[in-house]
């Protein structure tokens, strides 16, 4: 039960990071924090409701891996054009 509370607090920390960080890479780190908070609550609920929660957490891990690959590719591509990864500078997507 206490782990579910920890998961809620970790998720809130991730929200704070996404809102305050100003480099795209650090925003991504905060998103990873939120995904892991979701995983922690899935596994906490799996203790009461059976193994399906753990399988779902496995899927979340796989999707997070795909998201990181695409996201970091995007950051590298943007850095090549703009010489910066600050999210404040990226107000338009036109290359």
């Amino acid at each position, binding site marked *: *039960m*206490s*782990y579910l*509370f*920890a998961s*809620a*607090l*970790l*998720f*809130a*920390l*991730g*929200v*704070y990071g996404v*809102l*305050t*960080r*100003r*480099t795209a*890479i*650090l925003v*991504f*780190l*905060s998103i*990873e*924090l939120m995904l*892991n908070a979701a*995983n*922690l609550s899935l*596994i*906490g*609920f*799996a*203790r*009461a409701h*059976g*193994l*399906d929660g*753990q*399988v779902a*957490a*496995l*899927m979340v*891990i*796989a999707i*997070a*891996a*795909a998201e*990181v*690959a*695409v996201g*970091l*590719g*995007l*950051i*590298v*591509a943007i850095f090549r054009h703009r010489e910066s*990864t600050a999210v*404040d*500078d990226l107000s338009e997507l036109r290359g």
Partner: protein
Amino acid sequence: MSPWEALALLLLLATGLLVVTLRNAIHAALALIANFLVLAGVYVALDARFLGFIQIIVYAGAIVVLFLFVIMLLFAAQGEVGFDPLVRSKPLAALLSLGVAGILLSGLLGLKLAFSQNLQGGLPQALGPLLYGDWLLILLAVGFLLMAATVVAVALVEPNRPLDALRLEERKEEVLR
């Protein structure tokens, strides 16, 4: 709450706080690795041993290393750049995330959970039949997603001209660009 549980929670929150507050991106990524290692221990304690090891191998071993690699590649260790257009955004963000925490915690407050399920330790022998039984379609979809993500990542970072066609000086320029 046992002392180990309390210690794990304290470490989780402390490393999470470091991830969102440290100014140096490399330090933040290292704090994220610490967070993931504690999380792996928590998973093992929650009868999810396979996921605990996956957490160490995939997250701490692959994803964060990819992050560190990109941070170093782009010289992006400096977290705070330029001037801050919204000076008062931090207290506002703290307030907003506290609101999110309040909503989530209020959802958990009335909850009664019975910890009686037999999870067989969360070993691969227990997860495998589920993964290739009820969840097969979703597993295939995730596999397809991973393949698409790989193709997209390669296509995104491909240089405009093939590197072999460039002279040495141009190639250096292209790599630095």
